[in-house]
């Protein structure tokens, strides 16, 4: 596996293993996300990717191994403590506060992350692009799925994170909406200098955005490197054989 020089503020996973009772979810996974870096994580369903995000954000404990942010060990710390340190995750399914407007959702995000309104003002172009300013007063739960998703993602960004863990941000988005993810990632890296761990199934997105990619299969890290290289490896293709991703790739090429 390729080794990144360990920068003091990097997010590092060190031989992470997780098992629920007898069920091994992943085993001996190690990688480094440098500050302002962008690392893709791919792998067939069930490979443990969401569990990995749950663990790194602090929602679940590790069975063995460590997670480090800079020099501090963060596994086992509560989610809010990690968020306060700048490690924030997004959710695969829409994560917004129902019964509250778009504006209130974003205000809440600012408030909980103890940021002031200036962060929101910096996000304004992005909010405009996603169409969120138009529905500022509408309740989050009545918005179309794509808008809800982007709201959730922008709320995560409103915390002004240093490290973002994105759990399938493009899932459920129309093909036309996926460019928003490019804009989102670009903005996060440019404006906030954010490091991003991108878990995704959309291979085109991965190829476009990620300079480096790691592959999880059956709970193990089986490949790491630039996407062009990794995605043409036989063992990676085999891992996906029969998966929906093949159809996905085909559909997007046709």
């Amino acid at each position, binding site marked *: 596996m390729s080794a990144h020089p360990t920068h003091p503020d990097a997010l590092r996973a060190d031989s992470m293993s997780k098992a629920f009772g007898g069920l091994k979810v992943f085993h001996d996974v190690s990688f480094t996300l440098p500050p302002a870096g962008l690392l893709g994580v791919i792998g067939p369903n069930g490979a443990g990717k969401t569990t990995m995000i749950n663990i790194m954000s602090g929602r679940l404990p590790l069975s063995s191994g460590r997670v480090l942010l800079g020099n501090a060990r963060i596994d086992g710390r509560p989610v809010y403590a990690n968020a306060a340190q700048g490690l924030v995750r997004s959710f695969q399914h829409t*994560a917004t*506060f129902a019964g*509250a407007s778009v*504006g209130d959702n974003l205000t809440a995000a600012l408030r909980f992350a*103890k940021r002031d309104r200036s962060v929101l003002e910096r996000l304004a172009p992005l909010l405009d692009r996603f169409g969120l300013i138009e529905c500022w007063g509408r309740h989050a739960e*009545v918005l179309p799925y794509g808008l809800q998703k982007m709201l959730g993602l922008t*709320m995560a960004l409103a915390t002004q994170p240093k490290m973002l863990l994105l759990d399938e941000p493009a899932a459920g988005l129309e093909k036309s909406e996926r460019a928003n993810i490019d*804009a989102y990632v*670009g903005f996060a890296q440019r404006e906030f200098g954010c490091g991003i761990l991108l878990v995704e199934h959309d291979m085109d997105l991965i190829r476009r955005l990620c300079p480096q990619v790691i592959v999880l299969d059956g709970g193990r890290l089986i490949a790491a490197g630039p996407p062009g290289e990794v995605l043409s490896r036989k063992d990676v293709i085999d891992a996906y054989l029969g998966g929906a991703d093949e159809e996905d790739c085909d559909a997007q090429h046709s």
Partner: protein
Amino acid sequence: MSEEAAITRLPQARRPGLLGGYEWATLCVVGLAFAVPVLTRNPQILSQTNLILIAATASLGVYIMLRMDLMSFAVPAFMATGGYTVALLSLRLGVTDAILLGVAAFVMPALCAIPLGWLILRLKGVYFVLVTFVLTEIVQLLLFEATPLTGGSNGLVGMPAVTLFGIELMDNSQVLLTTAGLAFAGFAITALFTRSFRYEFAAIEKNDVLAESLGLACWRYKALAFSVAAGVSGLAGFALVNMLLTAHPTSFAPMSSVTYITYTIVGGKGAILGTLAGAALLVTATDLFALKGELSPGLFGLLIIVVTLLARGGLIGLAAKAVGRLRRASPGAPARVAPITAVPARGMKS
């Protein structure tokens, strides 16, 4: 990414008022209670108003925790703490000033709630239900057992009358005034507290996983709310002990926790007015229909089931829906933007 030079403007942030509509309405209604002893000397009415106010204030202890989807059975325990503290202070130390006693009645339970909150609010929500229920049983036992302190099964009898600026508050009207004062304080504290933290409470109720991942230390707010709820319940305990001039374990029976929960649920758990509405309705109904004490649990049980299945928002929720329907303007108008309110909703909750 857009290349336009124009700066995108965010909609103006609205300055939220100190209190919301429901809060002001409730404080007004409670304020009206001060007028009752002026308007009438009828002991029945005075007594009923007294009971309603005590019940409503106690139920605030349930309401505050329900804002975060936590069901508290601890109200009688904290009422007892407040009530017995006041009784002890007045009987043993001769303290009779209403304001001093009121502060003690709030502070003592609030302090006791802190270690408890630390213990159970970091665990799964169901633990809160289990432990608060058991807690009320323990406190009841302690009240019976710790005879030298609490008077055991006799309780603490013969409390001196409460005084305010030297004036003794002895007769029915004055006792009602004391209760009204305590109730007003309890409601005011609750209103200010829930209003100041409405974002946090609503977020914890709706999606605490999301709130936490954005950086909110949920358990701290829960613990803080638990303390405030305990304090407000303590005020109700003071009022009760003052009305009876006795602190007795049976006033704080464990199953009465169910009664306070019923007032809140039936009245409407979504708004502070709910506890007042529920208490007013149910206390009056039990009295009006001359229901013997034995039948009211059954009635309450039926009401709880009906409300839970058919009208989750309780009375206030139904009223709000009716008003909403009447008010419905043109379709497509943006939803009324109230800062995240805990809209009572049926169905999925995590």
